[in-house]
């Protein structure tokens, strides 16, 4: 196992952000952590990467207990995260930004800067190497976030919503980049709201709701899981959706109307989703 959480909990005052979470991320995997807003996904990332200390439970990375280890030590072990709200070194160029990560394994400034160009190539930032980071578009900033994490040569990269804020075309361009990273031998665990991308990329999915794990398994199974549907659409919404599905199945091929109704209901429910 590359990364393992054992019964990890964390509260902020009265809010139980993460409760008794256990999960295992295998090597050479591309998996996703999803859940409604406020489910505690980013908190889980912070707990994994040393930005927060768990109140209870343990975190293991490559078999080593890293519970409470500071973030920079985690990075040295090969566990790096990106940030949902991009955090560029705004006054520095793209090349300099990426070189900071490369310095984790390269002491020489010249080598780090040239390694930065290689990584930029990998994520499609090669043309912007000398741009100051503050002048980048949202899409380019997300790529920079990815490139910086990648430049540390991690074993596991935690990507916090690298697709959020991108338009469909930009998302389509980003998917092969993420696949390429995994192919190059880096395991990726991503938090993502763009379902199409999750289904497309991740083989294994964990669904978090109100700090608790409500589903884990292959991504194809997720959309049929009652608990997941309830978490996303609410109890009433889930019931309505289920009824519509049942109706559409029993009346299949008999009345066109019912199918349409079911499809409509489903479309209503998913209105904001796809």
């Amino acid at each position, binding site marked *: 196992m590359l990364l393992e959480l054992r019964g990890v909990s964390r509260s902020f005052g009265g809010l139980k952000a993460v409760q008794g979470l256990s999960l295992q991320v295998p090597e050479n995997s591309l998996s996703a952590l999803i859940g409604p807003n406020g489910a505690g996904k980013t908190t889980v990332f912070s707990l994994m990467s040393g930005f927060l200390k768990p109140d209870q439970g343990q975190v293991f990375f490559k078999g080593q207990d890293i519970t409470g280890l500071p973030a920079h030590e985690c990075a040295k072990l090969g566990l790096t995260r990106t940030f949902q709200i991009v955090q560029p070194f705004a006054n520095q160029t793209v090349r300099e930004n990426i070189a900071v990560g490369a310095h*984790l394994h390269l002491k020489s400034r010249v080598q780090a800067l040239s390694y930065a160009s290689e990584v930029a190539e990998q994520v499609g930032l090669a043309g912007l190497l000398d741009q100051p980071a503050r002048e980048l578009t*949202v899409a380019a900033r997300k790529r920079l976030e990815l490139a910086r994490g990648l430049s540390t040569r991690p074993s596991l990269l935690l990507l916090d919503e690298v697709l959020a804020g*991108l338009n*469909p075309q930009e998302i389509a361009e980003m998917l092969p980049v993420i696949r390429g990273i995994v192919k190059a031998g880096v395991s990726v665990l991503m938090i993502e709201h763009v379902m199409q991308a999750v289904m497309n990329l991740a083989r294994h999915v964990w669904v978090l709701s109100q700090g608790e794990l409500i589903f884990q398994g292959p991504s194809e199974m997720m959309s049929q899981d009652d608990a997941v549907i309830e978490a996303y659409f609410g109890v009433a919404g889930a019931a309505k959706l289920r009824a519509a599905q049942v109706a559409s199945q029993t009346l299949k091929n008999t009345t066109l109307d019912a199918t349409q109704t079911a499809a409509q209901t489903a479309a209503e429910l998913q209105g904001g989703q796809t």
Partner: protein
Amino acid sequence: MKDLRAIGVFALLVGLVPAFSHSGVILNWLMMALFATLLSQAWNVLGGFGGQFSFGHAVFFGTGAYTQVLLQLSWGLSPWLALGLAVLISAGLGAALGAVSFRYGLKGSYFALVTLAFAEVFRILALSVGFTGGGVGLMLPLSESFGNMQFSSRAGYVWLILCWVVVALLITAFLRHSRFGAYLQAVRDNEDAARALGVNPFTLKCAATMLSAGLMGAGGAFYLQVFQYIDPNLVYGSHTSISALVGAIVGGMGTLWGPVLGAMALELLSELTRNLFGELPGINLVIYGVLLILIMVFLPRGLVGLRERWVSRSQRARTPLGLAPKSPVTERLSAGELPVTQSERPTSGVGGHGDAA
């Protein structure tokens, strides 16, 4: 390397001035300008590259000066040896004060206030304890000789302070071309992002404070050797802290030549105003203040920014199709003015259970 060559040329040019000019006015100005440069460079290491704004750098300056005088008066040490120890002790104090402040995560204005407080504490301590001579101050006996680090002409002092300015320039060049410097600037720009990339902000900031404090201590020791008298208000007073940070800010923080340019320009300015408006006491400070405000407003990146602005403008003129210009839409997107992008819709939809039910 380009920086090293530039530093060499600078050292040579400035070093040759005393050989050509024996004018007391010019040499005195040059000495004071280089002295102000050293303080600004020292501040620039921590403030410009580390992003930690200290308002109390006088604490290191004063400690350097007192170490220099006490080692000579009480132990009869050679001033050259004392100078080395003064730098080391100031640097040590820097590491200690840095560790105390950064251990508790003090940042921004809180760090600035704490450094201000440190300087005041040291000033008051120096006023009240016995061995510093209290408010009466301490006097270094006049005895001009190279061994005593007291020179009969200003030229000696110019060369001495020039050496320290060059040391500071070399340290700054190191910050620009090394992993340590890259890490320090990463911490300045975004501490969390730096941590995620394996940077330990605490040790970095402490090390930067140490370097900065050491240079400041050298400045204090130099001050004592030139004026041969110090008291707590002179060396621990806030004007030293202010002049160190103003020079760096006016010239351009986080740059190699900014503090040099800034400190020299300000020294020139204060000399001019003092000569032109000498009969109106304090008018020089008024002009100084007005200019400072103007520079802050119109040149937030300092005098060095002036050149960069000119260079980038001429570059843009040359390559009109250089980098893809931002379309108005993407610009407004990145400014957060256009709220809806398709991929973000799930975020807003999923949260509200109500609109599904």
